[in-house]
């Protein structure tokens, strides 16, 4: 699946998007954040406070317990500040 990062999540990780293949045990958004965090210091820094991270699956907002199976694109970003 493709993952995208925005704003300070993108800056901390250092890339805007990548393709990842998490193991089958990674089933929810929460699981995915945990798995990504284990990939290195930049990821751990980006996800150091998971509760502030907002997530969208295929362009729709989802909660941390959302299942990721079938997702084409998952995005991680800080609380939004548009308008």
């Amino acid at each position, binding site marked *: 699946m493709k993952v995208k990062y*925005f704003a300070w999540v993108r800056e901390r990780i250092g890339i805007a998007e990548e393709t990842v293949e998490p193991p089958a045990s990674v089933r929810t958004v929460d699981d995915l954040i945990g798995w990504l965090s284990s990939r290195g210091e930049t990821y751990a820094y980006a996800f150091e406070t998971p509760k502030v991270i907002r997530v*969208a699956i295929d*362009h729709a907002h989802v909660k941390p317990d959302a299942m990721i199976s079938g997702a084409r694109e998952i*995005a991680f970003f800080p609380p939004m500040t*548009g*308008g």
Partner: protein
Amino acid sequence: MTAAVTIRIQEADFDIGHEIAALTKGRTDIGAVVTFSGICRGSESGEAIAALTLEHYPGMAEAEIQRHADEAMTRWPLTGLTVVHRVGRITPGENIVVVLAASQHRQAAFQAAEFLMDYLKANAPFWKREESPKGASWIEARGHDETAAARWTKS
């Protein structure tokens, strides 16, 4: 009742008069247009702001605004909606966003414009980075914006 919905995300500035004219041209079913425009301030809490840079999530931003425009259409008897949101670097005094809500009467137009702005503030995937004399930093979301958006949620 027909309703024209225009949603644009763009780097270029826009002209609010032109947007209103485009929405109302040739129409005789519009009795009220409420305009909200958001403008880049030159200071925040006493600190000078040199510029804002707005980032967005292409694809999702358009889809989310469209989804809420559709919801506004079902909640109020609107005859037109326009949302234009800029991205990129914006300096103090420049436009950031405009929402136009048109209806036969003012009440629906006022409410729909407020609904869409509350939503945009808290839930549309845009992020503001602020440049000040101290450096650049991402603006933090404010709790009262989420509270303002939540009051429109149907129980």
